[in-house]
């Protein structure tokens, strides 16, 4: 080291000048920026109330013989600048029917109505349409004055209409009253403690927030890898075979009750639930190592779940209540394409779809479609209320349905293995929902193994059930 290097530097006042100029410029810029931002906020805050225009519809996906559905659209509409929420605007609409997908749609004007204080537009399906043995397709266009664009329900309109299918030969399954307290906890195959360590799974921060963590999971097709989505730590934990510790894969996600689907090549699709202002939630696609392969918005405001299908991932989206493919030919599909390729049933391979409709307090209608026609169908009735249908998926020649059963005080999941025309097997599982997870992220079926995501005060786990029947 040279002498010059050891010598203390001489203070030079001239060096201060540019630094002081920088401080001065920074203060000025910051003041201008904050001032502009504040005035913009103040202006927005004092603007008039915005327009409201939204519509929802519970589609008549499945129906029993003799039922002639009345189509009901709840419509909310208030003009811009009107503070009184009871002062609605004029709305009208048209529903379009056809019995055969090769025919042109027939238009029928929706009639204004109200029920329980809800403004509605309704239509009774024409008798000739309702009586068609192969069902009918329909969509609605709802309009209002002003600048609002018409609402199409479902979003794909004529390209991907709703479909209502009659079930003339549905097998009836009577469940009676559910007996609580005999739930099978299953074989625990994965467990991760709550915490921030490399083997732990995190809880979302927020004292005012209920416990949310390990929001979703999936299992590879060979059943050898369970992937737990640790959204709080923005990572996936891969539990492989009998390895005691998981492999952590970092993911660039925003999380927030995200759902997860893994693909055969180990890639992962994460469906987020919170969108940027004016946008819809994102599906993020990662390779096995966590490298982002693509991002796409969902077509609709409220996606509910994502599943891997034989032709790529599909997302159940609301308010259309349709399964929409988010990838096509190895590339992510833009929102418009998703809506135009939507279907009422979840694709389950070999050209088949499963359609489910829970109606009333204790009834589920379910059908397997092949080539667009009902192949097999069931009507399941329960004296105990049935809640969310978490899973409806074929296992070989059977259909597995997992639905929640609940009372005021308790809840469990009931697992139904429908074998031909009868109930082949039934058992229940605990709900184990200490922490909240993605709404329909609790169950996965791989071959004849059913997997369940649960949580308790210690951590999150995955339990397995063998559905193979003797």
């Amino acid at each position: 080291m040279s002498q010059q290097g050891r010598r203390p530097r001489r203070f030079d006042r001239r060096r201060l000048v540019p630094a002081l100029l920088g401080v001065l410029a920074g203060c000025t810029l910051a003041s201008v920026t904050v001032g502009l931002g504040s005035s913009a906020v103040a202006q927005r805050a004092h603007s008039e109330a915005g327009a409201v225009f939204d519509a929802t519809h519970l589609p008549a996906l499945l129906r029993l013989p003799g039922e002639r559905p009345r189509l009901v659209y709840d419509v909310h509409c208030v003009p811009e600048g009107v503070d009184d929420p009871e002062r609605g605007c004029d709305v009208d609409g048209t529903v379009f029917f056809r019995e055969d997908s090769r025919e042109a749609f027939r238009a029928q004007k929706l009639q204004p109505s109200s029920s329980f204080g809800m403004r509605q537009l309704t239509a009774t399906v024409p008798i000739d349409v309702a009586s068609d043995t192969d069902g009918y397709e329909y969509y609605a266009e709802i309009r209002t004055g002003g600048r609002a664009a018409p609402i199409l329900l479902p979003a794909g309109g004529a390209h991907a209409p709703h479909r209502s299918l009659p079930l003339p030969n549905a097998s009836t399954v009577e469940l009676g009253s559910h007996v609580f307290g005999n739930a099978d906890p299953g074989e625990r195959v994965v467990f991760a403690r709550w915490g921030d360590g490399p083997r732990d799974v995190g809880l979302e921060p927020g004292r005012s927030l209920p416990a949310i963590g390990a929001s979703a999971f999936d299992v590879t097709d060979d059943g050898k890898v369970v992937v737990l989505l640790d959204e709080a730590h923005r990572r996936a934990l891969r539990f492989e075979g009998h390895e005691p510790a998981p492999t952590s894969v970092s993911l660039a996600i925003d999380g927030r009750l995200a759902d997860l689907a893994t693909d055969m090549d180990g890639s992962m699709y994460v469906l987020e639930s919170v969108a940027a202002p004016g946008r819809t939630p994102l599906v993020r696609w990662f390779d096995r190592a966590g490298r982002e392969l693509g991002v796409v918005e969902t077509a609709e405001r409220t996606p509910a779940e994502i599943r891997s299908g034989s032709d790529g991932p599909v997302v159940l989206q609301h308010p259309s209540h349709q399964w929409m493919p988010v990838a096509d030919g190895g590339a992510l599909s833009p929102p418009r394409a998703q809506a135009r390729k939507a279907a009422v049933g979840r694709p389950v391979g070999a050209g088949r779809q499963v359609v489910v409709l829970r109606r009333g307090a204790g009834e589920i209608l379910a059908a397997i479609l092949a080539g667009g026609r009902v192949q097999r169908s069931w009507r399941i009735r329960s004296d105990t209320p049935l809640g969310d249908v978490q899973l409806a998926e074929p296992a070989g020649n059977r259909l597995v349905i997992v639905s929640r059963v609940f009372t005021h005080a308790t809840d469990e999941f009931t697992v139904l293995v429908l074998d031909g025309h009868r109930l082949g097997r039934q058992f229940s599982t605990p709900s184990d929902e200490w922490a909240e997870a993605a709404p329909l992220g609790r169950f996965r079926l791989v071959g004849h193994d059913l997997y369940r995501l649960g949580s308790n005060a210690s951590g999150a786990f995955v339990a397995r059930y063998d559905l193979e029947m003797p």
Partner: protein
Amino acid sequence: MSGARPFAVSLAVTLGLALVGATAAYHTRFVADNCNAAAPTPTSYITRDGSATVALRARFEGYQWAGGCWNDNDRDDSPNDPHEDPATGGEGGDCSGFTFKVWRESLDQSDSGFQQWGMLRNVHGPYTAAAFKAGAGAPNITVSKSVLTKMDALASDGHIGLIYATNPDGTDQIIEAKGEDYGTNIWTRTYRGSSSYTGVRRTGWSA
């Protein structure tokens, strides 16, 4: 050239510090700068449709623990508020404050009448989620979850959300003020079947 680097460094540091400070202050200024204490407007009736409109206007407007004031510009004007502080003065309601305003209730728990609160009226109301769950207050009752309909609520000890629509798979589209990282919006939820949640109804709706 010798003065360029110190100029740039000091500019960046000063600008950064100033903006961080201003941002923190901005987050705590939404209520102070925009909200009011105006009296509510008594109304002779309310419909579920009208309450859905109140709720839809709060969509995208953020979340504030213990809060109850928002505008209608479809964005959270105080994003990324600290999670652990109920007094940061940010935009949005929390779950129970949101429900109180959407159900157009009175601060007087013995009053089951209808009060139209302005969006920018900063009011949370007297009920926590747990109080709603217990059916506290003259306008509120608990009901079977099987019969819940639009704008009825599902409440747990720590959260409450309103039914916006029912889905074919037995889930519901819930409109709710969920949390700072979520804001206020419509999501698919399975609260109805969860034993943590009870059905709650505001009484007095006009048909």
